[in-house]
């Protein structure tokens, strides 16, 4: 398998685009015609061939462009990557996990040679060829977490496990759905989820935490989350809200199909061996509504989900102001026919 990496941007002229193949493999998050919070965890143990669930860390046509976008964001705001001092070991765990998985799953793109603590890492798409000493941070240009997450798509949080809770104490966060690592770092599971409406009362976080605390080495889990973003922008951070906020008000009935994107997060959870921490990669996928409706099942279903969503959720997810425009656009693609179960397109 060879991947053609797109030359594209996630800001300014927004030249981001999905190939026909990328549309087909998009991780559509709704398995039925309505949506409510659920602890929708499943084992992250492979998935349909070619889908984003197949490998532990999905690499796709946006890889190189996403890494370029991350570099721009970090240059503007280095605080998007932070690690509290006791999390360095977890950072090495994450570096090992990502390097091992990528070298095994994409041998034509990545290789890892190990001789004891002397490691040799080759990342062909980004042109990196680096020898370093494992567990010796002075042999890397950045801390271990920052080094490897500058080479891996998606945001990453490292969670420390203690006192029967999970504590977000390190992270690389440049493509977030409106939360601030700098503000939330050091918080426990309930604190960093505090602003989420309804789910606390439903006991969602209690159940989710119990599940996550019990995740074992070699048995990662995953779930999908979603929101809506105007323009294919990765950096929808609160830090830059005053910069991207005005774009939310530029939607018209004429441009909604092109400018409104469904934003899906593939969240995975891996137990880390040396630190006993939990790695929490949050991989972001973007698809324009006009591309999404090329899969008839998805067009029908997204219309019904958005139409019937409780107001509080639309408000929290930040698209209440554009909701009617979105519903009106999607209505054209909903002929009222039943949809098949599951998230994948009909054959």
């Amino acid at each position, binding site marked *: 398998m060879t991947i053609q990496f797109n030359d594209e941007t996630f800001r300014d002229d927004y030249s981001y685009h999905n190939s026909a193949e990328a549309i087909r493999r998009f991780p559509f998050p709704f398995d039925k015609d309505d949506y409510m919070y659920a602890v929708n965890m499943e084992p992250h143990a492979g998935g349909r061939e070619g889908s984003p669930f197949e490998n532990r860390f999905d690499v796709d046509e946006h890889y190189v462009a996403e890494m370029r976008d991350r570099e721009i964001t970090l240059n503007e705001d280095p605080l998007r990557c932070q690690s509290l001092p006791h999390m360095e070991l977890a950072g090495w765990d994450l570096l090992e996990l990502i390097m091992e998985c990528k070298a095994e799953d994409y041998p034509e793109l990545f290789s890892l040679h190990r001789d004891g603590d002397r490691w040799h890492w080759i990342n062909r798409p980004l042109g990196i060829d680096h020898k370093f000493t494992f567990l010796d941070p002075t042999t890397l240009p950045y801390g271990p977490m920052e080094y490897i997450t500058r080479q891996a798509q998606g945001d990453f949080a490292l969670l420390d496990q203690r006192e029967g809770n999970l504590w977000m104490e390190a992270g690389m966060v440049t493509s977030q759905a409106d939360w601030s690592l700098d503000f939330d770092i050091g918080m426990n599971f309930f604190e960093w989820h505090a602003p989420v409406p309804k789910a606390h009362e439903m006991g969602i976080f209690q159940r989710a935490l119990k599940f996550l605390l019990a995740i074992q080495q*070699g048995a990662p889990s995953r779930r999908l989350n979603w929101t809506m973003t105007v323009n294919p922008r990765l950096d929808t951070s609160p830090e830059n809200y005053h910069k991207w906020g005005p774009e939310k008000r530029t939607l018209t009935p004429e441009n909604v199909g092109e400018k409104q994107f469904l934003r899906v997060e593939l969240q995975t959870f891996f137990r880390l061996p040396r630190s006993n921490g939990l790695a929490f990669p949050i991989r972001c996928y973007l698809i324009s509504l006009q591309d999404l409706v090329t899969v008839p099942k998805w067009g029908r279903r997204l219309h019904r989900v958005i139409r019937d969503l409780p107001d509080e959720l639309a408000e929290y997810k930040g698209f209440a102001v554009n909701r009617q425009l979105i519903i009106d656009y999607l209505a054209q693609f909903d002929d009222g026919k039943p949809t098949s179960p599951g998230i994948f397109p009909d054959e």
Partner: protein
Amino acid sequence: MSAQMLRVTEIEALSPLVKRFRFEHPHGAKLPLFSGGAHVVVEMPDGDMLRRNAYSLISDPQDGSGYEIAVRREDGGRGGSRFMHACVRQGDMLRISTPLNLFSLDMRARKHVLIAGGIGITPIIAQMQQLLRMQGRFEIHYAARSRREAAGLRLLPDLPHIHAHISDEGRRMDLGAILDRQPIGTHVYTCGPEGLIASVAQCTERLGWPKGSLHSEVFLAPPPGRAFEVTLARSGRTITVGPHQSLLEALEEAQVEIDWSCRGGACGRCETEVVSCHGRIEHHDHWLSEDEHSSQTRIMPCVSRFRGRELILNR
């Protein structure tokens, strides 16, 4: 619970009652690493019974070439440790689970005080190796009855901050002296008999320490008891739990699919909903809250038992 078949490559007597076992991959493959305080579950095919016991890892957490455990022979126990001592030979293959840690170090601590009684030294050994490698500040206090029985002495290096307290040499462990005047940011880890863990809790309470600085691990072997019957709501079947069998083992024997991991009432994996209960659940776990215990709506089948007319589980 994932597991793999490993070969027994070394058996060594550390004391008259304690043996050290080393396991390696049959083809020399690297084993998953772990963190100090982790344990594995060892499967023991004993006749037509399959026993599963959890043992703390005592080898270096960063060394994937093999796993080592130390097993104390419990003649009054349910038979797992007797099996390990009497039946396991070098070269045998045993199924060993992936390591799991319910007793990990708090890496923010300014200082770690590790207290072990008897065979409770085992998780402390791996914690020590992790601290040595990370250059953490720590002290170890290891209490044993006699030098002859103190298997841990063979596993502890001779360092000024590692102390053995041998009671028949007149050097009983004085918790008050150990814990008084520890600096802010100290965390205490205790492993050993319930009495030792309770003493550390009482001592720190008397000294005015916050409870959050205490960490402990008691490995509960499932306690034996009277036989009892359990009804399974999903199939309508009724099964009998024998006097020396745990409810979890009886469920497994009846081919009921059930998740588990520590088998000692601590990890929460086998938590089971009680549909109806006429009688009293004998809770022995450290997982459910006091409210959950008294409401009798949940049970941990790995260690808890039942007395009474009828118990129906959502299984």
